[in-house]
């Protein structure tokens, strides 16, 4: 009980800046009456940067997953999909998973899906960092990568929000998705189980990162040439 309280406190502290930052877009606030005028970025460039972010995040998450797999997962249990009963946390999100479905999605939905994904993963990644400290021989590279990814995810979120604002002319978003509490923080008694859960976490994140990247790239194609894109 005490642990969870402290944990919640910690996470509260950690999440507190998120709540603020979520409302802050990547580019400057364009408040009426503000004296300073920030240089704003063009939509294409912003989209490119966001895609870049997503690509990088995907690549690093892939490396982290394989590192984790090598170190902690015995061979028979190595599977490309999640098993052992741990479903991906984002399973419940209404995200299409076939190309045809995705093609039918509007730009708006694409962007919103990406945002949903990003926001869902910020918290679990933070958790993952703390659990990695409990591992005996967690390689430093793995720890660094996870750390890096969670930082970049925050930036990605900012970028997507800015993109939404630019492309869809919508206002800032609140962290509606975060409040859903998709993630459970209870520590499992069994070490193997705990390891498997972490492994599942990493695998799922890898997949979702790929989703984000794909959506954004599709979006880019549509921006350039709406009718020829698949």
């Amino acid at each position: 009980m005490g642990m969870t309280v402290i944990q919640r406190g910690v996470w509260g502290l950690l999440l507190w800046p998120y709540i603020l930052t979520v409302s802050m877009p990547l580019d400057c606030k364009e408040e009426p009456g503000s004296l300073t005028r920030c240089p704003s970025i063009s939509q294409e460039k912003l989209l490119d940067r966001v895609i870049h972010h997503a690509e990088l995040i995907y690549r690093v998450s892939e490396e982290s997953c394989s590192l984790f797999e090598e170190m902690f997962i015995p061979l028979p249990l190595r599977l490309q999909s999640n098993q052992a009963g741990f479903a991906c946390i984002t399973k419940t999100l209404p995200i299409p998973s076939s190309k045809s479905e995705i093609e039918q999605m509007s730009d708006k939905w694409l962007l919103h899906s990406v945002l949903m994904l990003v926001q869902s993963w910020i918290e679990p990644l933070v958790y993952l960092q703390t659990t990695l400290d409990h591992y005996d021989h967690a390689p430093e590279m793995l720890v660094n990568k996870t750390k890096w990814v969670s930082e970049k995810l925050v930036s990605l979120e900012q970028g997507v929000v800015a993109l939404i604002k630019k492309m869809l002319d919508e206002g800032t978003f609140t962290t509606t998705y975060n409040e859903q509490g998709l993630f459970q923080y209870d520590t499992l008694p069994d070490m193997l189980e705990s390891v498997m859960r972490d492994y599942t976490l990493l695998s799922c994140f890898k997949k979702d990162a790929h989703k984000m990247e794909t959506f954004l790239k599709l979006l880019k194609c549509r921006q350039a040439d709406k009718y020829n894109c698949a």
Partner: protein
Amino acid sequence: MMTKVREVLLLLLLPAFVPHTDGTRYSLPGKPTEIKCRSPEKETFTCWWKPGSDGGLPTTYALYYRKEGSNVVHECPDYHTAGKNSCFFNKNDTVIWVSYNITVVATNALGKTYSDPVDIDVVYIVKPHPPEKLEVTVMKDQGWPFLRVSWEPPRKADTRSGWITLIYELRVKLEEEESEWENHVAGQQKMFNIFSLRSGGTYLIQVRCKPDHGFWSEWSSTSYVKVPEYLHREKSVWILILVFSAFILLILIWLIHMNSHSLKHCMLPPVPGPKIKGFDKQLLKSGKSDEVFSALVVSDFPPTTSNYEDLLVEYLEVYVPEQQELMVDEGKDHDGCLKSIGSASDSDSGRGSCDSDNLLMDKSGAAKEEQQQQNQEGDQIGTETQGPKEAWEKETMLCANEDVVSPDASSKKVKTWPSVFSPVTPYSLSPLDPHNSLEMHKQNCLSDTQFPPGSPSSDHCIKKALQSSYWEVCFNNNQPYPQTDVHQQLQAHSDRNISAINDGNAPRNLLLPTRMTEYVEVQRVNEENKVLLHPIPSGHTREEACSWVGHGDNYSKVKGVNSDNVLLLQREVVEEESMEMAGAAESCYTSSIAINTPKSTTCSHIALPVQEERVLAVSGYVDTATMFSLDT
């Protein structure tokens, strides 16, 4: 009843017989294994499996799959499109980012066998088709050709929309045996340049692709390309370089040839000849070994020490002429090296690797000490005054110092002195090493006579020096200096006729240079029966002094001693071959001039004791040492 039972029995037994006749056994089908699924474009995928044994009965296979998160089991929609033992999932049935749990079931009449389930996610099983439309063209970049390879992504892969991102790799090989494939990663670009081609070669090129997460495709079909020849251009550059370097080489060879002589001296210094006193190389060459070796055996050799004391001369004053530097320069030609000429032949000794300088330095150091020692010994013969001697000592020390510093010191007068004097004192004490003495002499000679370079000149030089030293020098009886060694030489060459030397046979002989061009006049005879000589200033003398070649008037011969014990010197005109000296003609040696001008360092008095006939006869010049000895 019985028939019915029999029929039933037969019926029952029939099936049993049938298998026996076939020779096989029926069994359950074998488990299908190795289920492999691949998606070429991330939109469809196909699964293949390997069937096990069929158990002897016709077996059918069925694939069932279950999507992640749902328990609904579906069956493969298409068993035929992809061939035998395969299952093709089309676009509608394919979802990505979702795991499929796939199982293959083999069914035959006897039963079913389930394979092991396999979980796949389409995203991770992408293996695209190879790239298409591979084109290779030869392009030229300022005369140097290169290959431009271009291709298209596989038809079905939707790279345009960004659905799938492909990275490419190509490989190149020369069309010959034992050549290896050279791989190049082209990233996401669809074009690549290959440089550094072999002219006239044929290349094979292939390309393949891979999604950013997935499997490499197969290599595309090979493209062949032939590179045109461009060797001639390369060759011309090489030809130019060759010609140029050959030219430079020729120039170098010519230069070396021109300077071969000096180079030879530089690289291979001449080996010094033997410096055995009394050893005559010429005699050796002529083959008369008897004479040669007999020359070595002299009655007076080694000289007894008693004589030495008699020969002591306290000091000599030597006046060094103006053209000191010239001497020095010429001396340098001799390698700065004043190898003593040795007793006889010493044509090349000067150029050997001698360390005359060191020698001199040592000597001068020793000289000082010995000087003092000598002085302490007192005048055996008697010096006229102590003053000059002291003065000389100082000078000697001065000079010795200077000499030590460098033989090239430009101070003229003083310079000669040490060379003259430094060897003197040591010699006075002990049997002189003829080499050393001669060495000193040579230096002396070099320094105060302009000597043309050349081996014989050194001999002449020394002779001259000796002579000049003689005549210019104001010496005390205690100074053995030149006389000592001259004396020794005389003794060494007792059989040698100096006149013969004068005749010019002599370049090899150290003894008795007959080149004296200074004229000295007997000034007076002092109370101690010493003949005092002083140089005669005369223009004539000067000329003769300047002209080396064969105009030596020398007073090296003593005509006789008159009743007053005055030494009468005979003037001799000597013509010698002094071709070597010719070079020094212009370096007019102003010793005579110097003599003419009265200077403090000029000899003002020469002590020349009466000399015996014997001695005079032997030497063509005044041997003061002997004279002194006789005197005492």
